[in-house]
């Protein structure tokens, strides 16, 4: 991760609306573990406001939270749709060969010869291992690659690139 990258904001949740009449809000958490949203310190909005967040309970599909400075239902309702962010540097460091999706998405993709193929558009996991979705002008359609050492030998976050070894897929019909 580049040094300046630590300040990059990552969206970890959004306010879905007010909850009750005491200024609590319903927060839709985008974290892998929904409750983790309260563990990254103050959350920042797109317009620069900062909120300390405390989880008070759960509602269907959301967490019930108290945000610092929000005391009334009207204040809470006014925040509906606000996205909550955290600086990338606040996320804990990961062991080798583990990466945040947020770090991988947007990386430039090169093949082993150095030619640029495109960028990482998304990281998916449907239960059979993570794989990268790569798009770019050099590709007629999105390239899906298993996120393994064999297919992705190099992940260079500092330089913002990954090196892939695209497989030879068999195109013949069954």
């Amino acid at each position, binding site marked *: 991760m580049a040094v300046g990258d630590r300040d990059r904001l990552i969206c*970890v949740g959004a306010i879905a609306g007010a909850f009750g009449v005491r200024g609590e809000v319903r927060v839709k958490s*985008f974290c892998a573990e929904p409750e983790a949203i309260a563990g990254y310190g103050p959350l920042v909005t797109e317009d620069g406001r900062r909120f300390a967040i405390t989880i008070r309970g759960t509602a269907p599909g959301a967490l019930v939270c108290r945000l610092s400075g929000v005391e009334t239902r009207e204040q809470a309702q006014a925040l509906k749709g606000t996205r909550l962010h955290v600086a990338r540097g606040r996320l804990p460091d*990961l062991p080798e060969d*583990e990466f945040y999706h947020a770090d991988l998405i947007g990386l430039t993709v090169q093949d082993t010869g150095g030619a640029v193929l495109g960028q990482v558009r*998304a990281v998916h996991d449907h239960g*059979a*291992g993570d794989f990268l979705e790569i798009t770019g002008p050099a590709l007629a*359609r999105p390239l899906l690659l298993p996120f*393994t050492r064999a297919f992705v030998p190099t992940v260079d976050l500092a330089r913002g690139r990954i090196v892939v070894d695209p497989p030879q897929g068999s195109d013949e019909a069954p």
Partner: protein
Amino acid sequence: MARSVWKGPFVDAHVLKKAAKARESGRNEVIKIWSRRSTILPQFVGLTFGVYNGHKHIPVSVTEEMIGQKFGEYSPTRTFYGHAADKKAKRR
């Protein structure tokens, strides 16, 4: 009702052929298959299949825990792009 034991697991023959060919070649490749109905067999462990979902071939790296499941279970036909947030990916 479960499939009778004497019948054995169902696998399309062409999937078996492709898997055997890929294992012999020892190359780093994704075996494209359209057969979502085929059962994952022990001899598929360690191979990577591209399982068609009606739109594209989803990479499925077969592990021991997946034996007995169908390929289609790992290749959803509807894509959901969620938020990345703090989600992690592990390179194997």
